[in-house]
């Protein structure tokens, strides 16, 4: 009997094992039919993000005051980050280095634009002190804004490897402060600049002639007649005013986040700000070039405010006629130190 009982127990045990084995075998196909394990799959961020469509967001429920913190994942942010990290440096690099190359080629081919008739020895007031103040207010702020802004786009690539993380962090932190707060005097400068110079920068028929003759930049000693501002200067004026306005509005939205809308709108404005900044920097490089080494006698206009009469006659003949009619131009034999060249 004990033997029969033992045999029975063994049989029951075998039956149970067989049942478990069968259950296991049957269960395998069922498990294989599951496309993913939700718990394991949640760590695969790439698959999760790919599954989200354009504009989708993963949101949660929060109790802190910042309601926008409920957005946990916004896939469009990856596109924005990719643009900032990869495309923006390329766009900026091509724009700025391209402009630098153009200016160097122009200098090599055309050379410095000289005063064809030589120095007259007589000066004429071109810009009053308040005009020069406004120019330098806007220009000095722009240079700091441009450098600190370029650090945002290129600093990781160019500055960080040279100076290391600590120096780069300190530089970037102070650069950001300067960028934030110098934006305000820059915007003020733009407004004043617009008010004092807009009347002289309205495009007219005379500007077409300037363009037809290439502004006199391409041929030696040949200058189209121009009023106080020639067509090229008018172009720079409107680039600064309109480009500066776009920079100001987009910058204002970055200074005061979420003013224009949600995070997606913010990202669009940061892209506009960055692209316009690169274009404006390139335009200002050309402006700085022609106002300094590119053209003899040009810097005096914003340096001392007075330019040589011959320079004025060559580049702004119509304006000189107006000043002569007003009687504001000094006699031609007024003593003046002539630079030795």
């Amino acid at each position, binding site marked *: 009997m004990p033997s029969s009982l033992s045999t029975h127990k063994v049989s029951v045990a075998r039956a149970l094992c067989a049942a478990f084995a069968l259950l296991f075998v049957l269960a395998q196909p069922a498990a294989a039919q599951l496309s993913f394990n939700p718990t394991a799959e949640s760590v695969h961020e790439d698959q999760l993000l790919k599954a989200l469509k354009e504009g989708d967001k993963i949101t949660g429920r929060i109790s802190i005051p*910042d309601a926008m913190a409920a957005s946990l994942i916004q896939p469009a942010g990856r596109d924005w980050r990719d643009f900032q990290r990869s495309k923006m440096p390329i766009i900026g690099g091509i724009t700025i280095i391209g402009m630098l190359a153009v200016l160097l080629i122009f200098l090599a081919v055309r050379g410095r634009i000289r005063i064809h008739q030589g120095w007259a020895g007589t000066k004429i007031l071109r810009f009053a002190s308040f005009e020069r103040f406004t120019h330098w207010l806007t220009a*000095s702020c722009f240079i700091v804004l441009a450098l600190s802004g370029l650090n945002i786009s290129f600093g990781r690539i160019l500055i960080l490897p040279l100076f290391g993380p600590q120096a780069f962090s300190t530089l970037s932190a102070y650069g950001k402060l300067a960028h934030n707060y110098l934006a305000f005097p820059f915007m003020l400068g733009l407004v004043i600049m617009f008010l004092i110079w807009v009347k002289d920068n309205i495009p007219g028929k005379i500007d077409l002639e300037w363009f037809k003759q290439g502004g006199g930049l391409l041929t030696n000693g040949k200058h189209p007649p121009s009023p106080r501002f020639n067509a090229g200067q008018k172009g720079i004026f409107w680039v600064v005013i309109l480009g500066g306005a776009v920079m100001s509005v987009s910058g204002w939205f970055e200074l005061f986040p979420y003013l224009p809308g949600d995070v997606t709108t913010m990202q669009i404005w940061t892209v506009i700000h960055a692209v316009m900044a690169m274009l404006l920097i390139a335009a200002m490089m050309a402006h700085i070039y022609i106002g300094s080494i590119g053209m003899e006698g040009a810097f005096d206009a914003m340096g001392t405010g007075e330019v040589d009469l011959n320079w004025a006659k060559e580049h702004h003949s119509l304006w000189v006629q107006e000043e002569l009619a007003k009687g504001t131009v000094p006699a031609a034999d007024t003593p003046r130190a002539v630079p030795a060249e």
Partner: protein
Amino acid sequence: MKSFVAALLFSAIAAVGVSMVLSTIQQPSSVAFTTGGARVGDPGNNLVGPS
């Protein structure tokens, strides 16, 4: 030259003035975007509280 120096001085003074005005009307993010229960010691400098 005087106009240039005056412009530099004005821009620096204006920037400092703006920073002072904005700091009086704006809250730091550690205050604006959190409740009292979530704030840490020395916010802005220490995210984990006193060691």
